[in-house]
């Protein structure tokens, strides 16, 4: 009897899955069914039109209908990312170098916006940037704007402002944690050989945190490309972001072919950055953490 049990144990031990895989199974299956499956669908459906299952007709139609929006999305993504990095870096570097409490206060206060979901940001920007909204009214009271033809913000301007409102503090946040780790002695050494503030920032601080800056840029770019809420709530003119077009295509036309073609185009847009990010992260988490 005893031998029987131990034999069963030995047999059982060889056949069952190792513990870690078992622990990962629930979460993984969930992701496989609810993420990978629709992901695959989105790609296959983009090539499907009616009975044909491998055609580029959807892409052709997508390009014909939404060329302006596709270009608009690319513009907004690059411009937004560039501005977010430059201004976010400026904010973080300034807070790092200067002793002034104002700089630190502004930097910490801006962190507030990182945690606000885009749906709230959308509403805020709608009321702030409306033709007769807060901003225009204040500018009118400063005699900078005529309220009969106020500044229009429900276009690329407002969109960028909305994105930057969240992404500049985000970049600053990411970059700040890296900056904190840099010992003061590197900055002092630069000063001791004659470097002024701008030299210290450009030649010492920024090169030393290059990896973090790249990650911040990647995440910002992917965020801008993927966001649906903000353009949906804010942009009333044409052109708008591709994410809005995808929604229109599905809601009004039930046209999954073109919607998915647009989706795949978004994947391709995000792909270079995403692949870089994924490779770096996987390597970091496996070999060092």
């Amino acid at each position, binding site marked *: 009897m005893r031998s029987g049990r131990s034999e069963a144990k030995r047999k059982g031990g060889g056949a069952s899955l190792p513990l870690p895989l078992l622990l990962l199974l629930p979460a993984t299956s969930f992701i496989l069914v609810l993420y990978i499956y629709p992901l695959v669908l989105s790609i296959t459906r983009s090539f499907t039109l009616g009975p044909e299952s491998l055609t580029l007709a959807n892409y052709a139609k997508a390009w014909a209908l939404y060329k302006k929006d596709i270009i608009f999305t690319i513009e907004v993504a690059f411009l937004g990312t560039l501005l977010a990095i430059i201004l976010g870096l400026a904010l973080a570097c300034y807070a790092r170098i200067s002793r002034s409490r104002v700089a630190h206060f502004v930097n910490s206060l801006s962190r507030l916006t990182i945690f606000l979901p885009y749906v709230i940001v959308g509403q805020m920007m709608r009321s702030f940037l409306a033709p007769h909204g807060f901003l225009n009214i204040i500018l009118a009271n400063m005699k900078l704007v005529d309220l009969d033809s106020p500044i229009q913000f429900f276009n690329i301007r407002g969109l960028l402002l909305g994105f930057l409102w969240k992404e500049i503090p985000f970049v600053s946040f990411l970059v700040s944690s890296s900056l904190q780790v840099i*010992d003061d*002695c*590197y900055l*002092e*050494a*630069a*000063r*001791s*050989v*004659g*470097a*002024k503030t701008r*030299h210290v920032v450009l*030649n*010492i601080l920024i*090169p*030393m945190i*290059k990896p973090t800056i790249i990650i911040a840029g990647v995440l910002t770019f992917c965020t801008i490309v993927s966001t649906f809420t903000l353009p949906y709530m804010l942009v009333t003119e044409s052109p708008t972001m591709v994410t809005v077009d995808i929604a229109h295509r599905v809601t009004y036309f039930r046209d999954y072919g073109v919607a998915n073609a647009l989706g795949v185009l978004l994947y391709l847009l995000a792909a270079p950055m995403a692949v870089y990010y994924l490779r770096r992260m996987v390597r970091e988490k496996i070999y060092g953490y």
Partner: protein
Amino acid sequence: MPQVKLLDVTKHYGKVTAVDHLSLTIEDQEMVTLLGPSGCGKTTTLRCIAGFIVPDAGHIFIGDQDVTYVPPERRDIGFVFQNFALWPHMTVYQNLAFGLRLRRLRRDEIKARVHETLALVRMTGLEDRYPRQLSGGQQQRVALARALVLHPRVLLLDEPLSNLDAKLREEMRFEIRELQRKLKITAVYVTHDQAEALVLSDRIAILNRGHIEQIGTPQEIYQRPKSQFVASFVGLCSFVEGYVEGTSAERVLVRTEDGLAIEVIAEGLSQGQAVTLALRPESVEVLWTKPAHNKNVFPAELTRFAYLGETLDCWLKVGKWDIRAHLPVPQIQTLSSQLWVQLNPERIIVIPH
């Protein structure tokens, strides 16, 4: 090369006074060491000279210029950091060239200067290496080179050798001293290592709690300390308290409260004056048998000893005093608890109260 002058420099950190009305003049081409325990204000003083810290009061002059409020990048100094502070994203060459590029020197001039300075610190051929590819000693040389390549007016060194191992430290001491002499550059060196201070300096300033206790040549500091603090900080020292009982010419008799009579050589002491006698191990001779005369001879009990290789470090009890001495080791087989010490009056340091 101009002198450096500190005039009444004071710096507070909250309630703590790090530097307390400190005045110091460093002569042209002189190397002065600021020596003291941690927290004595030596690093703060050095950083004030560099400009990383602005003093609360007082003035700092480099040459004729009052640089108290001049930012560090305009003081024309060279600073060597304790942890080297070599920029990790730049090669050795770029680390040195950085300051030169800021001054808009021509490419070929920069190249010449960098190579010349690297040769000076014996690091030729390593221009394209990154700091992480260098050993500690090599990084130290590059840090030194980076400070020197600009031909600064003053060279400031903040415990540059404390991150190196003992043997390397000894080697580098000499190299730094020779470089300073060769380049005839005024230098201020900060350390807590007294051996370093003795080897490197033209003069040593002993700092304690933000002010200078004593400043002088290494010999003066070692042989004629003016206070107990200085005596015990540089070199080994045992202390005996007493008062002056009698004087005749230079010979003074000091009586301790437990009745020991010690003859010393000193001037300007008055009858009854309280003094502290500082005894370095070299002023104490340990004897196995009682000598014939009894001048400065006292019975001693061996309480502790430690084998140091070339000597035996001994703790002896003389009366109520603990006295430290060194025995040449060959005598170890005749060690016994009851010994005699003879104090050499010419070597006893007298510190009047």
